[in-house]
């Protein structure tokens, strides 16, 4: 089939689903709405598959299918077609998006079956899908930006889906506004690129930049990437703009799975992987990205340790994992970043859906302190969750192991990497293992701590099937990217398929000769660190449940700081938001009302004052008037006689 039609179908299907559900938004029929939405999503998935296979049949260098539907903006030198490209990166992305998306849609049917307005929910979900596809398919930065903002918008709508709760509505707004801060950076980055290189189309940019970079100053390029990175920090929840993501958990859990774990938040990573052939010419930007990613990974992981809300833990985990991806981007391991993006999509979606299943079973209870021992009530959920857990903490041969290990190795060995980066990454891995194990321990294992009136039950098949599929993917998803060192010893010598697939479209930094022994060693270190973390958590929360409290008490202020998320929200409130509001009020009341208006009033008052004076002068006395005349004559005369 013609790829244009496929792309069109791919895009239109969710849009039609959105239209269908959007127009009957009052409907309460979750099954109809969900089926339609899922079908739409699934059609897209099929299209994605078709496109993927079409792409696969092409020679590696020619693997891009572009179709431009119409010229969107044509002004001056700016010519933005409404064009979409499927290439190696976007093919992976659309597969993830539509694949995981379809599963999550399916999961949602069960999850939202008791909601008041399921149609609206599915409409939003389809709309999100559309926007996300636009984002990854866009063949120029502006179309990407369309999707970029569009997904933010859907995220806003979905986070605030239960808008009656002011906190949830506020969370939606926070998400959108924080994203907007990033978007502003994105815009500026785009402007710089456009005015430096005269185009916004990826293919042109990536072709042009390596050519001109030798002869021109790369300052604008670095600056552009830094600004684009601001955009990415917003969208992908990196320091300093990560604060919205934990709050975004206010939305329905499948939304968290789809948007805030699997797809949307990885848009930043996608963008940098997409631009990686140019990024490698901006090493300073890469350094900033790497360190921001590493710092985010560690900070979020430590916060995750202290959280009690199951979704919040997962949210911080997401932030942390996204930090990994940016670490990868920063050290030039673009393939690894994209790889981790994919595996993370599998296991994090899985865990979010699993948590959704738990929450669903627990009647909207999210506090892990009130759970425990759910293993026996929710066997399927538990089982799949375990798979996800193993994947995220990086136990071989689960998916997360390969991708995370790749990142850590690159952080260590890449010319852009350093031991410090590796150390932070490894430390994060330990923390990850700790808090994920803690989550498992508190939720599924141990004794149940919930009340008598709660009767957890396993979710319906529409919810468990996605869990199982994702569980499977969490296990095998990583096998497409087996590192060379590992591949060398495995039977059949599987090569790194994933990297091979991406190779033509990502940037490459010059590598030293791989040090096989070192790689093995580090792999061992990271796995053992993960094991250590997991064991420690297991010990703390199951063997000696009182230990955490003692530790917390002992650490005192440090613990409180971590538990309160380092007071970042408070810091923003105190030093950013409140001053902004206070300033605005001050501006309004003092500048607008008291200065500008007063100035105009002053003009009025001046006239009014003059009017009083005129009235005083006009005192009604005939002889005063005569005096004015006489004085007037005298003055005129004096002047005329004197000057004339």
């Amino acid at each position, binding site marked *: 089939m013609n790829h244009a039609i496929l792309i069109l179908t791919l895009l239109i299907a969710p849009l039609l689903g959105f239209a269908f559900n959007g127009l009957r938004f009052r409907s309460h029929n979750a099954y109809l709405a969900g089926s339609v939405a899922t079908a739409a999503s699934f059609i897209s998935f099929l299209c994605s598959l078709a496109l993927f296979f079409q792409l696969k049949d092409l020679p590696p260098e020619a693997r891009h299918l572009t179709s431009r539907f119409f010229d969107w903006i044509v002004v001056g030198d700016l010519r933005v077609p409404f064009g979409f490209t499927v290439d190696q990166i976007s093919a992976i992305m659309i597969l993830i998006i539509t694949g995981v998306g379809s599963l999550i849609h399916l999961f949602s049917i069960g999850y939202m079956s008791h909601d008041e307005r399921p149609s609206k929910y599915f409409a939003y979900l389809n709309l999100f899908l559309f926007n996300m596809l636009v984002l990854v398919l866009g063949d120029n930065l502006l179309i990407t930006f369309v999707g970029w903002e569009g997904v933010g918008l859907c995220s806003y709508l979905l986070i605030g889906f239960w808008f009656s709760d002011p906190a949830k509505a506020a969370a939606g707004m926070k998400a959108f506004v924080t994203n907007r801060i990033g978007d502003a950076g994105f815009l500026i980055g785009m402007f710089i690129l456009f005015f430096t290189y005269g185009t916004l189309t990826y293919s042109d940019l990536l072709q042009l930049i390596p050519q001109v970079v030798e002869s021109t100053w790369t300052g604008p390029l670095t600056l552009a990437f830094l600004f684009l990175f601001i955009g990415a920090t917003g969208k992908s929840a990196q320091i300093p703009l990560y604060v919205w993501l934990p709050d975004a958990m206010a939305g329905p859990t499948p939304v968290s799975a789809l948007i805030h774990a699997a797809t949307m938040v990885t848009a930043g990573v996608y963008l940098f992987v997409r631009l990686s052939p140019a990024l490698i010419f901006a090493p300073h930007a890469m350094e900033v990205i790497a360190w921001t990613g590493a710092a985010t990974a560690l900070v979020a992981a430590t916060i995750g340790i202290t959280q009690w809300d199951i979704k919040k833990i997962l949210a911080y985990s997401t932030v942390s994992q996204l930090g990994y991806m940016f670490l990868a981007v920063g050290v030039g391991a673009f393939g690894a970043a994209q790889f981790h993006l994919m595996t993370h999509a599998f296991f994090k979606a899985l865990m979010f859906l699993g948590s959704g299943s738990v929450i669903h079973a627990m009647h909207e209870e999210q506090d892990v302190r009130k759970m425990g021992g759910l293993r026996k009530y929710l066997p399927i959920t538990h089982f799949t969750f375990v798979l996800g857990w193993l994947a995220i903490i990086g136990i071989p041969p689960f998916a997360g192991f390969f991708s995370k290990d790749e990142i850590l190795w690159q952080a260590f060995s890449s010319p852009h990497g350093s031991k410090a980066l590796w150390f932070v990454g490894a430390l994060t891995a330990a923390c990850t293992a700790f808090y994920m194990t803690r989550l498992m321990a508190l939720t599924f294992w141990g004794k149940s701590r919930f009340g008598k009136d709660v009767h957890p039950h396993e979710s319906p098949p529409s919810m468990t099937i996605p869990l199982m599929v994702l569980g499977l993917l969490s296990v095998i998803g990583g096998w497409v990217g087996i590192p060379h060192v590992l591949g060398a010893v495995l039977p059949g010598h599987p090569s790194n398929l994933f990297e091979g697939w991406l190779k033509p479209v990502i940037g490459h930094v010059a590598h030293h000769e791989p040090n096989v022994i070192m790689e093995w060693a580090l792999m061992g270190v990271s796995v053992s660190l993960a094991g250590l973390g997991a064991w420690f958590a297991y010990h703390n929360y199951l063997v000696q449940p009182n230990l955490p409290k003692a530790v917390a008490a002992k650490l005192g202020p440090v613990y409180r700081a971590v538990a309160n998320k380092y007071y970042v929200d408070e810091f923003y409130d105190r030093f950013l938001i409140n001053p902004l509001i206070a300033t605005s009020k001050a501006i309004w009341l003092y500048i607008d009302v008291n200065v500008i208006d007063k100035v105009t009033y002053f003009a009025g008052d001046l006239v009014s004052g003059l009017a009083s004076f*005129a009235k005083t002068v006009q005192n009604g006395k005939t002889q005063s*008037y005569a005096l*004015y005349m006489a004085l*007037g*004559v005298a003055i005129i005369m004096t*002047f005329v*006689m004197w*000057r004339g």
Partner: protein
Amino acid sequence: MEIQFGLIDFLLVAPAVALFVMSCVPLLIKVMRGNQEQNTMATLVYAYTGVFAAMGFCLPTIGATRTAFEGALVFDGVSAFATIVILFCTAVALTFARDSQSTNPKQFTETVFLMMNAAVGMLTMVWANDLIIVFVGLELFSLCLYMMIAMSLEEKVSKEAAFKYFILGSFASALMLYGISFIYGTVGSTYLPELLSSTQNLLATNRLFLLGFVLLIVGLLFKAAVFPFHAWAPDVYQGAPTPLTAFMATGVKAATLAFFLRLVASQAFTVERFWPFVDVMQWMIVLTILIGNVGAFRQRSLKRMLAYSSIAHSGYVMIGMIAAGIGGASMLGATGVMFYIVSYAIMTIGAFGVLHMLEPRPDSDLTVEDLRGLAARKPWLALALTVLLLSLTGIPPTVGFFGKFFLFSAAVKQGLIWLAVWGVIGSIISVYYYLRPVVAMYMEEPVIAPAQVNMRPLSYFAVSFLALLVLVFGIASEPLYQVVLASVAKVF
């Protein structure tokens, strides 16, 4: 000595004769009827006959330049134009006078008589080609006005107004006369052409002439209410019966400014020795615009507000006068002045006309609050007043806009941009007070006991006609401008 004038001279002054004769008719009838007022309508018809006959007599003289009585009177474009304006104002003011509570019904005959003869005085002034005749005309209409104001049925302030006007007017006349005496002494004649031809020379050489010329102008500035000779205007305009105020504000100014234009045509302002006066005059204009607008700013009384605003308008028109005087493109200034005279006459007399219709008693002093809710009760009257006020503000498409446009054009062309800027500032201030009545009429709740509206059909018709005229000339100003252009073309 040979008598050098004939029938033609009498034909030329026929408008004045017609006015006088027809003014006497009702008076004679009254006397013959044993001092009994006759039907005011009949009186008015006689008066109309006089005024329209005068207009009819005036029409043939348009376009020609003639002198009469051995050059004592001159009939040129300016005088013909001013004559028409004055007669028009007289006719309208007569209509209002009949319908007004303060001039009717007692002694309406006398009022008509005085008013028509005031018109005679004004005509005399615009025709005059000799300072003596100017003075006589000026005194004639001044005296008529003093007495008419005093005849108002309003008890207290009209007498005060009359007396103030009288004292200050006499004072100004005396000053002017003093100036005339110096002019006479230095020129050796009071004959205007002789004066004008020697003005430039004498101004440069003779201080006494300078003094006289300035005093003469002071006298005119008094009549035109220019700062600092404006102080009488608010008090007198407020105290006078409204129809008379309308007459005063328009007719007197038309006559005075027409004569002023003649003086200015002498190019006196171009004499270097006279420049200080031109400078002072510019400052006076600025202050006039300011004091007029600022004074009107906080007036409660509508009449007083309009009085102050008429001071401001004098300031605007004087901008044109200066522009006409300083040489160069003086035509622009002159046409600006003439156009403004007619536009100002139409809108001012209309605005006062509406006011008088709203005055239920002779002593009503209408305030802005009294207009509340008028739009609901008398929509067309309110609309007429709105149009007139917008025209006074100078908003297109009204004739007031073009009046200002021509004046500012003249100022800009002549490099008097700062005067134009002050004119603009004044106009901005004026927006506030001109729109306050509109606000009251349309946007405020009606008063509980609304004042009776004096809906006499003739006044109503006149006011509507004037409002319509404001719009018509506002949209089609070119024909009027061509007339004005033709009228000043021969003089400048």
